[in-house]
């Protein structure tokens, strides 16, 4: 160890994104490099979010808790995502209150995770849309 304090990963990513946007992008004229630079900056913002929290682990834990409210025989075996998949497929292959109950338990959890993840990837969505809008004319 030659440095007492190493740079923070988040700082490196954030500074790199800023330089891409403020320095590199304005000087790029070709369409494809501009597209890439813009989306890479969004990717760095997205990566910072991944560093801050282990969302995948949180999602697994939430789903594991929710699956306690679903009959074991419709879950099969495997990870929480595999068991939730099996239960929801069963719920669409059968009619009645038991099928409805599976969805009533799992949908709120999965929909919330989907919305949270969509919000987390918003920098990428914005970057790609902006990049695509700049390329309408050929």
């Amino acid at each position, binding site marked *: 160890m030659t440095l007492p304090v190493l740079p923070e990963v988040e700082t490196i990513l954030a500074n790199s994104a800023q330089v891409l946007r403020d320095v590199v992008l304005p000087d790029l004229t070709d369409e494809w490099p501009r597209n890439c630079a813009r989306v890479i900056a969004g990717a760095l913002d997205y990566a910072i979010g991944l560093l801050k929290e282990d969302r995948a682990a949180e999602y697994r834990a939430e789903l594991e808790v929710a699956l306690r409210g679903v009959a074991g025989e419709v879950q099969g075996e495997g990870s929480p995502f595999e068991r939730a998949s099996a239960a*929801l497929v069963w719920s669409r*292959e059968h009619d009645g209150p038991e099928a409805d109950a599976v969805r009533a338990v799992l949908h709120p959890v999965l929909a919330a995770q989907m919305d949270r993840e969509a919000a987390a990837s918003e920098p990428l969505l914005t970057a790609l849309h902006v990049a695509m809008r700049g390329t309408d004319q*050929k």
Partner: protein
Amino acid sequence: MSDTPDTLAPTPERFAAYLTEAMNQTVLVNAQRRVAMGQSRAMYLLDAVVGGVAQTLVARVEQSGLLGSDSTLEVPVMQALFRAGYPVAEILAYEPTGSVVGQPFFVMAFVEGISKEDLSTLDDYVRLLHQLHQYDPDAIGLGSLPKPPLPKGPALDQVDRWDRTYRSGLMGEPSPLVEEAIAYLRRHAPDSDRLCIVHADPGPGNYMYVGSTITAVVDWEFTHLGDEYDDWAYLIYMRGRRVRSPEEWIARIREVVGVEIDPERLRYWRAVKHLMGVAIDQTATRLYAERVETAPNLLAIGTAIHLSALQMLYKAVLAG
């Protein structure tokens, strides 16, 4: 040492050498420029001289199966439609092996036009889409396209296709809401009354125009024989949703081409098209994670775009 597909990359020299042989005349490529239009293919504008005549050519290069499509049906579909007089770019050469630039590609004539959303060309575009649906596939040389059995084959074939595409991009565990949607769509497949040529990705952004004249319909990689609602649903709820409300589209389609849209059938096909979006975007996840393709747009497609499609699928068919 000879080049292998892994080390090849598109260059003007490689395009020129290939086109000289394929077109049986001297082709020079003075410069190439990648454009960002579209996502499934890498698109290059080539400043070429063909037999002494300067012209722009367009190379459409595959990207390792990104979005679950390749050129094997796209090329014959475009060729047949071009021969039938439909506004499609002329294909000049097709290299299916990947031995020239590392991936299969085809080269087409440049078509003047822009693809920006434009209200003045929408009615003509609806007429063109309807015209596509009226072709007899056998009569224009597309009799070899797979013909799903009526009445439920068109729906079930598409659900199966997007199921396979989604699974090809999975990284280990399944996505519960996608699995549920596939099960739902398999169980509720509606009847189709006839087969027609389906573009499958129609709407604003996927046609070119100059002034008020449509010069080319583009992006034929998902084209197949199926149910025309496949196209109407995509036009109404996806590509067309920024320019008109669904109600406006349904009324306009009725007025312009006389097609009366059945809301229940449309609802089903809307869900199929959202599943298509979810599935094709999933392919980007795997290609990016395994570093087969490294362009950053794949990360955006595999995360943000995929999730956006999943949210729409959920709202359209699963919630409530």
